[in-house]
């Protein structure tokens, strides 16, 4: 018996260590980002860095303003949510409540497949199909733009929104719906007036998850958005926070490199904020 207990404790210990690895990674990244991100902000000046409108990191008189990147990331994410959420939400209502079993199987496996496509593939197809398509459709000189990035991001966040919303909708107790139906409401009335309100915090969590996914995406947007550090315009070439770091990292040096770490820090804080919001909604959905 004693031996068994010792073995149990040993295994417990291993699991504890494995769990601590994750915590350690997060701590390491946080500390590293703060340490390497602060110096450039100090040198450039907090205000000049966050609200400067010009980014010219290798010019003779360099300027390091990241307002264009911040606004682009915010607009790009908002645009993706604006397109992705209605589609994702209605799809999930359909799949959770209305769809016949066969269609449901086909659609949900397609959605999982969509989630499994690597981001570089989205980027490649965006670059080869979407960007020239936008150029021809809107008769503009070049299709690499904020719009292209929004469309690709909207598609990329669909799977997370659909899957989380379905789970939330399925968790609504059947009695609620039965009661509504018994009172004479039609099925569609029931879904939108009973099931959806009951699942609303879960659906909100899905939206926040989508925001997190969209704001952190680098590869895809780098390939379709043009990467010029302009203030955001729907048909203009833009650079996101993520791509600002990724595109210049490989050859950067000195203050330029430090400033890239500072951008990463800003992005990190933004994502932490979104994560905190996600946790808040998830907690509420469990309690409600």
């Amino acid at each position, binding site marked *: 018996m004693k031996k068994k207990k010792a073995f149990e404790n040993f295994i417990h210990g291993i699991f504890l260590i494995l769990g601590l690895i994750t915590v350690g990674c997060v701590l390491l990244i946080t500390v590293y980002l703060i340490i390497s991100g602060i110096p450039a902000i100090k040198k450039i000046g907090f205000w000049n860095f966050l609200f400067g409108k010009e980014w010219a990191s290798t010019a003779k008189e360099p300027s390091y303003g990241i307002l264009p990147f911040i606004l682009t990331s915010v607009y790009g994410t908002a645009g993706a949510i604006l397109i992705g959420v209605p589609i994702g939400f209605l799809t999930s209502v359909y799949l959770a409540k209305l769809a016949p079993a066969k269609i449901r199987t086909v659609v949900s496996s397609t959605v999982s497949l969509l989630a499994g496509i690597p981001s570089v593939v989205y980027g490649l197809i965006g670059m080869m199909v979407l960007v020239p398509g936008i150029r021809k459709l809107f008769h503009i*000189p*070049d299709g*690499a733009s904020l719009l292209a990035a929004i469309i690709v991001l909207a598609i990329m966040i669909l799977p997370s929104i659909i899957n989380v919303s379905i789970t939330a909708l399925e968790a609504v107790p059947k009695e609620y719906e039965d009661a509504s139906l018994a009172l004479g409401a039609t099925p569609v009335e029931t879904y939108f007036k009973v099931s959806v309100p009951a699942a609303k915090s879960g659906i909100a969590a899905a939206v926040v998850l989508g925001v997190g996914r969209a704001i952190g995406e680098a590869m895809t947007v*780098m390939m379709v958005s043009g*990467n*010029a550090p302009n203030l955001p315009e729907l048909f203009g070439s833009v*650079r996101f926070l993520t791509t600002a770091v990724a595109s210049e990292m*490989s050859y950067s040096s000195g203050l330029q490199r430090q400033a890239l770490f500072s951008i990463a820090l800003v992005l990190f804080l933004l994502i932490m904020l979104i994560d905190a919001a996600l946790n808040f909604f998830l907690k509420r959905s469990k309690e409600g």
Partner: protein
Amino acid sequence: MKKFLTLALAAALVVSALASCSTQQKDGTVSTDGSTSMEEVIGVLGEAFQEKYSGMTFTYNPTGSSSGIQAVKEGRCDIGLSSRSLKEEEKADGLVETVLANDGIAVIVNPKNGVSDLDVETIAKIYTGKITNWSELGGNDAEIVIIGREAGSGTRDGFESITGTEGACKYRQELTSTGDVITTVSQNPNAIGYASLAAVSDQVKALSVGGVSPSEATVKDGSYVIQRPFVLVTKDGVELSDAAQKFFDFVTSDEAAPFISQAGAVPVK
């Protein structure tokens, strides 16, 4: 029991991997420092060198041409790497340049584009936004879409310094690889871009510059002007270490030429 065995094995592996790091004997070290654009060439040469002389260690510190030159001057490395010729005052400081290879930068447009020849001034005017429509150059009535590389890229640095457009380019797209530039230009009939000559494929059309079309031959004889030398910088009167001398002799020999071509540059030999 099986799990313990796996764990023990893994631990043993880690330990042995750590141990093997520190036991190799070194016969000599060559340290190089400088241009980031030469990364590929010098990387390939370094590998070939280490294969030929086993036991030699080759290091390369990608800091940029000017800091590489500075490093040789201060004796912090054996050989400096520069992707521009030495300036007069640098030569006056007792530095010597040996041209290792030349690198041509092709100016590329879509194959559908009617324009096929531009001179350097016109290219500079396009990139600084003074000429914005292909019709001004005898092409279609369409806005010129300027494609370039990201800040810090060696190709961008080379292109901008040769055309005299440093920091003044009005890029519509800043892409992070030669391949992306070529793909984008091949997709857009109104685009213009630049890429290392070695990477240009028939998806795009390489413009002739001032009547000279870019090729290995025209880069070699200097008639194609958008090119820059890859230079080895050493100090006059200071003898190289045995290992560094071996490396220098190796990379400037005929034997090294295929490696230089393989890395996309045009060897001088």
